[in-house]
């Protein structure tokens, strides 16, 4: 065999192995199991490729067929893929690849925020190089009423908690405008967010800005944090409607992962 053929053979093997790992990665979610067609659609691979990968993974013990023999589930040998000296990924680490994915989809700044009392705090993000952008400063605090991410955090709190929050924080002065946000206006937005399942917020001004903020859930359907993207309305409004299905699918995929964990606020639970 000459070196060119060897290289082609290696490349083919590597691609096949990469496909096997990609198929196994799909099972890193809270879904009960998968069939060949479902995996083929999700991964964009032919059914034949998926079937071959599944066969190898069953041979290796990382997957098992369910009792019906029709679907595949995680196998017990996955338990061998642990190292007691490596810590579990935290919320920021779980979200990090999805912050990048959302940035690739929209081309606009992306931020990841968590709640800290009456504030939302930036814990990760990417800033676009395009002109006109939201700032993403790791560690910076924003009042919950002041931006789309904070409002998502409020929207998925109980009505009593929201009333208490408004009492504690009134008057709610909006940054950069000195305008006051009336409690009624905030409530209207929070109801909209609850109905839509995410926030879509237009900030008026000389440069109107559009922000979309998605709740990221934990295993008890409590909020881990909020992932948002946004930019000048003139630029983003044109694209956002056709981007929404892809954005929602990306967030859904992320939540299938974050829902494997309890939010960090439950510190007494083994994580």
């Amino acid at each position: 065999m000459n070196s060119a053929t060897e290289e082609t053979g290696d490349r083919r093997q590597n691609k096949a192995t990469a496909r096997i790992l990609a198929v196994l990665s799909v099972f890193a979610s809270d879904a009960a199991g998968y069939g060949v067609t479902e995996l083929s659609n999700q991964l964009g691979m032919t059914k034949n490729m998926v079937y071959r990968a599944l066969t190898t993974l069953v041979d290796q013990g990382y997957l098992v067929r369910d009792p019906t023999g029709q679907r595949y589930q995680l196998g017990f040998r996955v338990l061998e893929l642990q190292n007691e000296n490596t810590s579990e990924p935290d919320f920021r680490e779980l979200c990090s690849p999805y912050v990048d994915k959302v940035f690739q989809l929209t081309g606009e700044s992306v931020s990841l925020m968590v709640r800290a009392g009456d504030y939302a705090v930036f814990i990760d993000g990417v800033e676009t190089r395009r002109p006109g952008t939201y700032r993403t400063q790791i560690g910076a605090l924003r009042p919950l009423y002041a931006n789309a991410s904070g409002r998502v955090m409020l929207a998925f709190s109980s009505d009593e908690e929201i009333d208490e929050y408004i009492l504690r924080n009134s008057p709610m002065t909006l940054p950069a405008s000195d305008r006051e946000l009336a409690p009624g206006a905030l409530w209207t937005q929070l109801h909209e967010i609850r109905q839509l399942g995410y926030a879509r917020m237009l900030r008026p001004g000389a440069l109107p800005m559009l922000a979309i903020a998605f709740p990221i859930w934990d295993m008890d359907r409590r909020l881990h944090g909020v992932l948002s993207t946004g930019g000048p309305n003139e630029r983003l409004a044109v694209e956002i409607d056709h981007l929404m299905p892809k954005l929602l699918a990306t967030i859904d995929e992320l939540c299938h992962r974050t829902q494997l964990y309890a939010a960090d606020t439950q510190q007494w639970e083994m994580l």
Partner: protein
Amino acid sequence: MQARSARAVINSSASHVFDVLRFICTWPVPLGVTEISRQLKLPASTVYRALITLEEADYIRRYRNTPRFELAPTPHLLNRALFSRFELHHASRPLMRSLAQATGETVSLWARLGWFALRIGGAFGSRDVYHRARLGETRLLHEGAAASVILAELSEADLASYRRFVDKHFPERRPDAGWDAQAQDLRLVRTRGFATIPLPMAPGFDAVAIPIRNESGHPVASIMLDGPVLRSGEAELDPCALQARDDLEVMIALDPAAFLSPFAHIPADGLLIRTPSTSDTETGGSG
């Protein structure tokens, strides 16, 4: 024929990749190509390709920008996904939290998985000092109190099968004192209804494990109180722990099908898991 040999090659490539991944899982520090190649007796080029494939698929990552590698989030997520398939993992959470709060101790829930016990739930105690227990730890049924309290509840026929399984697959992990001494310990555990294990860091105190049985009386899990909870030789357990056991057993009896292990359809001898033996506070023996 050609197609079959191509498939065999692909499988062997995947097999090397998984060998490398499993090896990284067993090692206490991040590893580079040379070390893995020497330990696994594989060519450096094969190891290098395997590492790149694993890194690109997010199974491993570079440790602090060095040429050494450690596990990335994906294997952790796969394990999490596996735990979520155990109904006990979800259903026991409020009980484990209440028990940890009531006793102040770190508590764990271990599920039976064939001839192994798997830690699938737990809550940290409210004290400042606690045991950094982790989910996913797997032990043979004679290793440590949490596992051996399950073993003690098995029938004589099952015990004989278990010993054959360990003799065949894990001869190096047989009990130091031999199976006969082990059988005596198990009888004591069965009579008392719980297992204890001395705590080296709290002389005179023991950690305690209690079995959880299903509606047919078969052991399916155990609760472990990792703390110093019992003066050595004491025979009375904390009523909160017994209440947690009763609550779990009622929950399981009400919906036995839901609480079946996800691998209940695979015979115990078919569930072969090669994790390193434990290095936790509990180091074997059933007390």
